[in-house]
């Protein structure tokens, strides 16, 4: 049985429909990410799991218990807040022990657990500090330790890395993954940062305008986006909009600027004449001086952006801009304004109809 089961959850704030008919389940031990742009409903969904918001419709079941109407203090769930929300009048040890105290745990047990948690987040020795005496990174650790102290079945993390600077974010991401694996606690993290979601989570749910757009493993989301939105929001993409046309034995996509319909790698459940798009990741685009066999576009190089190991090359072709990510060592012969051929393996392009 899944640890968390959400079925048909809906929530509106006045005329704003924040969450619309969301159903999903999270298994024990998963590192699950809710990914989406701001205002997509991911935070509202997280707050419904925590109990700060109650769904207008639908059910939330945690570990077999229907908690749809339960208040936050009666749920086996703890949350790490985006602002950390540490108690400013309590020191580090008292912050971590707060939840244990509510449980009625004895003082000696509390002290032991606090010490355990502090060593888990590498903050031993800072027990007596107040939150205002800590750096941003240290506060983040205390917030994590406090949320984990009660050993919740489910830990919710609201934008856990958003307030940290870039370097610290990398380290903390690694640490979060390490702690999650060591404890085996189920984590649900909300983030607007696709790198964070793809890099940490074992499964990602992409949300858009209150609805679930796609759920899957990070590679699945990236390689096989099921909609224009997911293709565009998760990573960079070249989208070719066109119209389905009947070919010899399968449908093709007629795109303005191409002399023949683009072949589709997978069957499409739409009639000829319907609108669809082909999504192609920038690193799948191949550049060559000579015209390669098969589908190819004559392009001019608009810009070459060096990024270290890879370079971002912008191309002008068929009246639009295309984006290619290529290994930097292959860009030596390229000049701005110069002609180039762009091509791709049809198997690397994904057709999206939504």
């Amino acid at each position: 049985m899944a640890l968390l089961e959400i079925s048909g959850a809906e929530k509106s704030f006045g005329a704003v429909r924040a969450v619309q008919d969301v159903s999903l389940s999270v298994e024990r031990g998963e590192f699950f990410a809710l990914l989406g742009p701001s205002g997509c409903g991911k935070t509202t969904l997280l707050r419904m799991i925590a109990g700060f918001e109650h769904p207008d419709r639908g059910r939330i079941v945690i570990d077999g218990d229907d908690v749809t109407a339960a208040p936050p203090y009666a749920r086996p769930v703890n949350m790490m807040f985006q602002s950390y929300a540490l108690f400013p009048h309590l020191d580090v040890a008292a912050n971590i022990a707060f939840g244990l105290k509510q449980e009625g745990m004895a003082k000696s047990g509390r002290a032991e657990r606090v010490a355990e948690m502090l060593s888990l987040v590498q903050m031993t020795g800072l027990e007596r500090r107040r939150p205002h005496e800590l750096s941003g990174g240290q506060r983040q650790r205390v917030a994590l330790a406090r949320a984990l102290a009660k050993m919740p079945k489910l830990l919710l993390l609201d934008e856990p890395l958003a307030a940290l600077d870039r370097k610290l974010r990398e380290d903390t991401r690694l640490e979060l993954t390490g702690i999650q694996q060591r404890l085996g606690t189920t984590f649900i993290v909300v983030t607007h940062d696709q790198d964070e979601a793809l890099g940490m989570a074992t499964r990602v749910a992409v949300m858009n305008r209150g609805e679930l757009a796609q759920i899957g493993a990070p590679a699945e989301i990236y390689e096989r986006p099921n909609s224009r939105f997911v293709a565009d929001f998760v990573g960079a993409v070249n989208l070719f909009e066109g119209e389905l046309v009947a070919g010899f034995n399968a449908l093709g996509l007629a795109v303005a600027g191409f002399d023949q319909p683009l072949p589709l790698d997978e069957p499409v459940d739409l009639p000829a004449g319907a609108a669809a798009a082909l999504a192609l990741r920038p690193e799948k685009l191949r550049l060559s001086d000579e015209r390669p066999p098969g589908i190819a576009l004559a392009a001019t190089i608009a810009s070459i952006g060096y990024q270290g190991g890879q370079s971002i090359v912008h191309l002008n072709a068929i009246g639009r801009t295309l984006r290619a990510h290529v290994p930097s060592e292959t860009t030596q012969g390229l000049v701005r304004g110069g002609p180039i051929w762009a091509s791709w393996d049809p198997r690397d392009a994904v057709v999206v109809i939504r």
Partner: protein
Amino acid sequence: MLGLGVWGRRVLIGLPFAWLALFFLLPLVIVAGISLSHAVDAIPPYAPLVSGGAIHVSLDNYRTLAGGCLRAYGESLAAAASATVLCLVLGYPVAFAIARAPGVWRHLLLFFVLLPFWTSLLIRVYAWIAILQPTGLLNRVLLGLGLIHAPLVLVNNFTAVEIGLVYSYLPFMILPLYGVLSQLDESVLEAAADLGARPWRTFLGVVLPLSLPGVAAGALLVFIPAVGEFVIPDLLGGPTTLMVGKVLWQEFFENVDWPEAAAVAMVLVVLLTLPLLVVQRFIERERPT
């Protein structure tokens, strides 16, 4: 800084000091001086401290005070202290409710809290006499409802003074409390609930400790003026209640004993400095550095 230069900065810092020295320290020193003199039938009605090359200083006024006025101080402190506690008990839920109210309501409710200041205190206290007297509004309503069988004695006693003090000073408690409570970070309260604290535990463990600076400020704003209050005990307390404000008034205007009145005032200043220092120390200790 502001490009004021050394002299500009000295003037900027010096002005408030000069103001305080001129209008606070100097009058205080004058009053202290008068309190060491004795009354004479002249204008002004006290003997000069220095005359004929000799200094005439006596603590007689303070001795008289210690003999006769202790009850007035005790009663004033008791009335002010209990009014402060009552204001806190009544004002906290009000401030909390206003701080939690939605935006538009918040302004409206704050406006209602301040509304009484639009009428003179004197008129409002007279209104209380009309409400509290044996044939007044309150007694008639209670009799009419059959809750009491004989009118309650609600004027010319300590209860009346207490009602007047609490009524008049309640806004001074509500406003600083509202100040701290409206600044409370909602996510901190959510964190408490998330960690298993029921609403009551969240209040005791998080809201109350975080609002203590507001409690301290409100308590001072009520307690200090309430101790020296004159109008309310004079109008509502009747002849039997004896409070410092009334003693001061009597010594000054009825007995024309300025030195004795000055001594009464000086002791009051000292008494009021004590709670101020205690609260100051408390805030210093709690303030994040």
